[in-house]
């Protein structure tokens, strides 16, 4: 168990270093940070001083080391666009993005898995066929179009839901939450649907095809041949085996929801990290981009670790020491 976790942790660290390297390269080599940070009143002496202050005259590995150390302390420099420390900007916007992403993920899971199981068990029923067709439409509808349509119907025509923003938020310590106010909850509805819908269709299609795959497996056939009830076969055997691949891919999907929220946040002017990132891209605000990249990678790594641990719980093949097997 510990060996497994340690191995996973080491892999996670390698991944983080790779991403950090990409971010670092962006940071140090894309554009000229000195030029970007210097104003019209800069003199050559200022330029040399700043180059030195930024450590740009040091060898590459020293710079990378400093970058990683700073990153570990949450220091990603100052936004070129807003002029505030990137860490502060991201921290201000993290709660908004996380709340939206988690709600969207819950929606996608809560609706996607049962729908997928149903469509897998009854692939020929009209409901399953309708759901599959609808999911194809769901995959074909760009997220921003879904958002616009929702706004058009529920905010503009019907006036039921707010068209933008988070509504009123409550500050609990350093965390701002929209979950505790009526306007905050109402504001959450449309972005959640917009963001969750695509993932929902993906998860549903995934669960369905895994279910179909598992239902064809020999052990399912054998379970039926032993006369087990349909219930035991479908939900006892098939579903649990479906879960193994579904956990992995769903985990990855959920990680990507946070990054996907870029579009939703733009459409609904949701004050999260994604909105910050889009603005950073159009401004070529490299520090923000680099920090966002690292943050998303961190989320990915954490989710991956959780997925691995879940795997560990679900699949005995990982849990039991191979040495115990009686080979021949």
């Amino acid at each position, binding site marked *: 168990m510990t060996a497994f976790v340690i191995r996973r942790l080491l892999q996670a660290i390698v991944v983080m270093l790779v991403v950090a390297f990409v971010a670092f390269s962006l940071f140090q080599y894309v554009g000229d940070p000195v030029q970007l940070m210097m104003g019209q009143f800069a003199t050559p002496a200022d330029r040399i001083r700043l180059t030195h202050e930024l450590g740009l005259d040091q060898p590459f590995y020293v710079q990378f080391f400093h970058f990683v150390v700073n990153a570990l302390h949450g220091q990603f420099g100052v936004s070129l666009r807003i002029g505030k420390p990137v860490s502060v900007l991201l921290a201000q916007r993290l709660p908004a993005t996380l709340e939206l992403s988690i709600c969207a993920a819950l929606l996608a899971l809560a609706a996607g898995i049962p729908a997928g199981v149903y469509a897998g068990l009854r692939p020929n029923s009209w409901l399953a066929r309708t759901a599959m067709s609808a999911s194809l439409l769901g995959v*074909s509808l*760009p997220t921003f179009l879904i958002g616009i349509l929702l706004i058009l119907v529920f905010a503009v025509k019907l006036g039921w839901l707010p068209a933008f923003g988070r509504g009123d938020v409550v500050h609990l310590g350093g965390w701002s939450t929209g979950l505790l106010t009526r306007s905050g909850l109402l504001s959450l509805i449309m972005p959640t649907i917009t963001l969750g819908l695509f993932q929902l269709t993906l998860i549903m299609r995934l669960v369905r095809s895994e279910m179909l795959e598992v239902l064809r497996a020999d052990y399912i056939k054998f379970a039926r041949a032993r006369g087990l009830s349909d219930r035991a076969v479908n939900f006892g055997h098939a579903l649990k085996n479906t879960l193994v691949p579904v956990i992995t891919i769903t985990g990855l999907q959920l990680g990507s929801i946070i990054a996907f929220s*870029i579009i939703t946040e*733009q459409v609904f002017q949701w004050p999260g990290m994604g909105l910050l990132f889009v603005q950073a891209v159009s401004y070529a605000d490299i520090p923000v981009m680099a920090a966002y990249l690292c943050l998303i990678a961190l989320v990915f790594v954490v989710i991956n670790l959780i997925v691995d641990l879940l795997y560990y719980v679900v699949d005995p093949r990982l849990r039991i020491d191979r040495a115990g097997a009686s080979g021949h």
Partner: protein
Amino acid sequence: MANRLAAALSEAWDSDLAWSFRHSPWAMAAAAVFLACVGAAMLAPWVSPHNPFDLAQLDLSNSLKPPAWIDGGDPSFPLGTDDQGRDILSTIFYGARISLEVGVAAVLFSTVLGVALGLVAGYVGGRIDAFIMRVADVQLSFPAILVALLIDGVARAVLPGAHDSLAFWVLVLAIGVSGWVQYARTVRGSTMVEKNKEYVQAARLFGIHPLAIMARHVLPNVLGPVLVIATIHIATAIITEATLSFLGVGVPPTEPSLGTLIRIGNDFMFSGEWWVTLFPGLALVIMVLAINLLGDWLRDALNPRLR
């Protein structure tokens, strides 16, 4: 003998596909729509009533005309005009052309990159394989749109000013790089199966590089799956392009793609000029849906077990 067998098999495969196609009304409809889109896009300069990218042809006094069948409409602008006086129909044709060009070019780029990396990873194995697949894993956690945005942002920083003229290639690069993983995984799996077969060993004896001969043997095996991935990927690429343009980091505003038009139209949500958003939006969804339907059908047809 083996050749004849292969020929017979491939013939059966082909005819199976053809049969399945003929008996799937959805697939046929999708193909028809897709062909119509491709045709309209390719022939845009000839079939469009106007050239919306020629700024000198635009006239503000034509702006925001409703579709021809509505009061105030102008028959020379069948689907109306946008705020700059661009004919919506023509802009859809030209925009679809950009979307398709970006989509196809990006997918080609992805395919080549993914297939090559998959072959190398599967064949060489060991550390290189581990490295490539690890990179693939990492990248998989970043959605295409994020990778594309990132590349776009970097391109902006590296090429200030020149960004607009290179926008097309930046898009292709951005979308292409973000999609290679699936191809690589498929090809890698197939390569690992083929690697240990005798003909690969034999190739060495004949002095042919095993990678060359493998490519020849692996590629036909993975053609089906790669085709399926590529089809669906084109749809994804088109959506990604539209999304980037919608976010305002895609093609320049003077050469609007479908996403740009939708963004423009978004500003007219309340003022009643619904056609600026609706028609490009519909065109986008129909085109993507057609490609997705084709991809879905292709996957089922090539892998009947999944039906």
